[in-house]
């Protein structure tokens, strides 16, 4: 029998392939290595990210699902909860005990019950509704709060860029 982390990742991959959630595609970059995935997320409708297709990379730890994976957008992003290098900062990706922003309750942290699908769905809802209290990207958080029009413009530019449309 292969390792439990591997088996679980395979099971999740199968599940995601058989019943893909709307607007999300995810799978291992290389079927030799199930611990690095690539995901494509479409921007939620009715938000400033609508229409965009955002690529991201998921890196799973050897003890997955006991520890959370890391997620990083590989395209340019401008969002209060995404660091400027693309790393995603949401509570379900943090193991209880490490709290980079010091405000999350343990109830919304990582637990083995979570899955790739849930992470990606959370990220979609994070795109729709940023949490401006945890400023992974302080500039974006500030702009989101104070100058929504400007924020929307930047978001639109990013959407166009991900689609390869000249801005």
């Amino acid at each position, binding site marked *: 029998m*292969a390792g439990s982390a*591997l*088996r679980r990742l395979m099971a999740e991959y199968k*599940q995601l392939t058989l019943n893909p959630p709307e607007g999300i595609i995810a799978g291992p970059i290389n079927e030799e290595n*199930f611990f690095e995935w690539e995901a494509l997320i479409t921007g939620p409708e009715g938000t400033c990210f609508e229409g965009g297709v955002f690529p991201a990379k998921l890196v799973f730890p050897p003890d997955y699902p006991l520890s959370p994976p890391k997620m990083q957008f590989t395209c340019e992003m401008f969002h209060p909860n995404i660091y400027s290098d693309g790393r995603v900062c949401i509570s379900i990706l943090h193991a209880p005990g490490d709290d980079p922003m010091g405000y999350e309750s343990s109830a919304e942290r990582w637990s083995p*019950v979570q899955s790739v699908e849930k992470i990606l769905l959370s990220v979609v809802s994070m795109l729709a509704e940023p949490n401006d209290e945890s400023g992974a990207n302080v500039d974006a958080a500030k702009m989101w709060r104070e100058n929504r029009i400007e924020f929307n413009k930047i978001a639109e530019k990013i959407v166009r860029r991900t689609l390869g449309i000249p801005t």
Partner: protein
Amino acid sequence: MRSLSISLLSLTLTLLVVANAYYQKKQFYPSVVYITKSNPSMAVIYIQAFICVWITGKIMRKIFFGQLRTTEFEHLMERSWYAVTETCLAFTVFRDDFNPKFVAVFTLLLFLKSFHWLAEDRVDYMERSPVISWLFHLRILSLLLLLGCLDLHFIQHAYLSTVTKGASVQLVFGFEYAILLTVVINIAIKYGLHSVDLNSETPWDNKAVFLLYTELVMGLIKVILYFAFVAIMVRIYTLPLFAFRPMYYTIRNFKKAFSDVILSRRAIHNMNTLYPDASPEELQAADNVCIICREEMTTASKKLPCNHIFHTACLRSWFQRQQTCPTCRLNILRNPTNNNTRPAAAAAPPRPPQAAPFMNPFFAGQNPFQMFQPPNMDNQAPQQPRPAENGGEQNGAPPPQPQPGANMPPFVFPPFPFMPFLPPPPMPPQNFASLSTEELQRMEGNERENVEARILCLKNIQMLLDAAVVMMQQYSTTVLLSNQVPTTSSNATTPPPNLFSTNNASWSNSQGQSETPRVAKVAPTTNVQSNSSSENGEGSSSDVFDKPTTSKEGPSLDASQVSQEEEIRRRRLQKFEQQTESE
């Protein structure tokens, strides 16, 4: 491409140097002397030697590992830099011995070290790779064998040289190779465990435990080696600065392995003692998939107090991280015994009438003071206008009204140490024989909060006793009163054990009260009776209540009353029995 050009360049340079020397000296021996005497030529030769080592390394890597993965390569680079830095530090200690041979031996050490690291990474990768070919096994096995032999050889060499020639730089090498040998053994054990697991059809639950203990033992050996090395070095030379970083990491890893073992043991202990195995029916009821590993649960699954079911092995590895339920995050260490008292405790405080029909041991403890309640209410009813009775009833009987925290169990037992206040303390088992000494001690506790809780509990007992006394007094006055006023007699002298009827009465009473507000009543009992019978069509409460009211028509003679009461009681009991049977 670049490395190829560099090697070619170096090769040309070397050839040039050799050709030049041979051209000048014409003979082999003088040309060798010439090269060794000339610094630029030696530099070229050194570079060439370095490149040769590099190429050998590449070839060996190709043979034993094939293509390196990115993470493996990153690890290798990172570790190499540290190793090079430490080697430079080591040079400072042994600067007297510094010569080309010394450098060569150190390079060899680094070279072998890097293969140990790669082997380690590769074996760790086994668990995460979907396909393991026979080539992989062949490579790992031969590499481990080779590395082990080399390590042993160098340890022996270092030992012999130290014994014959006294302490020298060989001490460092001996020690380094000893560490590397432990690494090889560690990798070999891991490899063995992984391959056994790979070949078995079902997941091997105990593998994690074996790995943990391997880690612990190997960590211990390494820590001892490092301490011994530092002690020897301090005695003979000076503080070996270059050994501190690896030593620190080794100690840290050992500490981690140690705490992992402890946590794991605790988790296993909890698993085995606190939680029941899930039955097949329960597995069927849940959707039979362990949410941790997403696989079917066939055997070896446990049910947590919160009714969530998981594989034993999955749960165990999770509990090493955290002692919560993965699904609902219930802290399983805080209330290990709460599971059986929780439903009862929830039902206990609010309404005695609802609670009464369950006859479990928990309520048996509660009953003593419940029994006083109905007479108290019934006795208030005739004497006072309706509102008073109502108030008394909705809060329960005023005096024994307990705070939730001071609920029944503290009567007899000391409170549970972890939660002196809310929620209600868990019910201790009926006898303490089933508990271990340790558990008993934990239960008793001697921190401040425990003592406080005990005092609080004693106070509550006192309060309840006082309440009981007050009720007894009221009871006796009611009896006295009932001798004079026949209408109330039946209610007041309702035998205490028969609390169901009275409870039902008071319940229907309160229902009637809430639904039809009424003015003060003249003949309370009849009122209540008609009310309950009219509004509570179902027989249970009204029927039972019917009996006492019929007795009211009877004469008020003491003797006949007593016998009549006896009769009523008998009939009621009968009724109750029928009722429970039918239910």
